[in-house]
């Protein structure tokens, strides 16, 4: 399937992939396994095209580490970790994707099934990772045994590129074939953001998702895409309050939600949808 890319597709691709990292877990040979006793090297990158470069830097960092530690190693299982399903190269490559376009056209489930069939994990970003808050997903390779690092990086990279293409295609389809659905989701979110009296952080996170999509596509005036992203990031960092045990707890929660709603009402009062 070839994607119909719009004129600003490169710009959109940056926003579809919100960041990522790669990790190599290396445990010391002479120690007992402990969850906190892992030597983890992490490299961050901003764009999917940087993955091979990030791996080169990761390799160099690992070489430096190898001069100081003797890694736990088995000829059959490769680099060993405390987790029996985590061995081999230990290389995990992950990135976060904003898949609101696929969600709105209803293609999210088939895409998810396809990704999972390729032995990759498709995880909703939320406090507990179960709900798909804001349709932002973290995707990473689940399997680490039986494939060399460079090949794995190429494979993950190809999957990420395909996913970005699918999402951009979905966005294009949304405005060309189903503009009503697109408009409805944006207008609905805007209406709630302008007039809600109580807003919990995760509800706000969800409502900002279509706004972020419209902002990235250039159909929102009064707020920039990066501002929406930072608003979403701020909500994701807030600790979840425990379930209310008393009336005082509920009042505290309501006060927090009312304050957030008030702030958001003011911020979105002048935001306009320009489709």
């Amino acid at each position, binding site marked *: 399937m070839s994607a119909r890319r719009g004129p600003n597709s490169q710009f959109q691709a940056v926003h579809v992939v919100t960041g990522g990292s790669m990790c190599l877990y290396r445990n010391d040979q002479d120690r007992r396994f402990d969850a906190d006793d892992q030597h983890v090297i992490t490299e961050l990158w901003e764009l999917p095209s940087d993955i091979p470069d990030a791996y080169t830097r990761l390799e160099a960092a690992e070489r430096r580490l190898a001069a100081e530690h003797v890694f736990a*190693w088995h000829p059959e299982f490769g680099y*060993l970790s405390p987790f*029996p*399903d985590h061995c081999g*190269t230990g290389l995990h490559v992950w990135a976060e994707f904003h898949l609101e376009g696929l969600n709105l056209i209803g293609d999210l489930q088939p895409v998810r099934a396809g990704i999972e069939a390729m032995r990759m994990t498709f995880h909703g970003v939320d406090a507990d990772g179960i709900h798909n808050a804001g349709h932002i997903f973290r995707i990473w390779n689940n399997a680490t045994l039986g*494939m060399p690092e460079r090949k794995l990086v190429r494979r993950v990279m190809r999957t990420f590129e395909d996913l970005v293409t699918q999402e951009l295609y979905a966005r294009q389809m949304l405005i060309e074939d189903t503009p009503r659905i697109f408009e409805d989701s944006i207008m609905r979110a805007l209406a709630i953001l302008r007039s809600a009296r109580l807003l919990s952080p995760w509800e706000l996170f969800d409502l900002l998702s279509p706004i972020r999509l419209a902002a990235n596509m250039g159909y929102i005036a009064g707020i920039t895409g990066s501002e929406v992203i930072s608003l979403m990031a701020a909500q994701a960092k807030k600790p979840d309050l425990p379930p209310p045990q008393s009336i005082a707890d509920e009042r505290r929660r309501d006060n927090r939600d009312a304050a957030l709603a008030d702030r958001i009402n003011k911020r979105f009062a002048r935001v306009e949808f320009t489709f």
Partner: protein
Amino acid sequence: MKCEICHEADAAAVIHVKKDGEDRELYVCKACAARSRHKKKDSKPKGEGAPALEFGDVEEPPEFVKNLVEATLGFMKGVVESEQNARTCPACKTTWEQAKESGHLGCPNCWKAFAKNIRANFLSGQYGPKHVGSMPPTVTGEASRAYLERELKAAVAREDFKRAAALKRLIDALGGKEGQ
């Protein structure tokens, strides 16, 4: 109805007897039915078809069969015990049951001790059954000098001079620049 043989007890079974070339059906008591069965068994030549087994008819097995059964049971017990021993890591004493329940192995040696179980339970979702890719420098020989130097320092620190001398000889044998 009274038994047709002893005429004393009540009839509780039916037996078939041949008298004057003619099959007859007799209603008999339990004791007479048992006696009749034993008579039939004794009169029948061996190998001519085994009589149907009934409760109480089982004989004691011969001695060699008993010995064979005992030996087999003992062997099976030994197999189970050795399997249970194999399910404990000799280095950290973590059992396979503990590791499986917590999803956490105790030490690098657990991978060797539980290799069979790990292969069967945890590696189905991987790309392949065996590691492919980079190897630690200590395995490839790239960092063996650094490793030996560190070992040397540790040996000197704990005043194990015999081991330190052996390590120094190995490092000298490798050659090259110091600290590499």
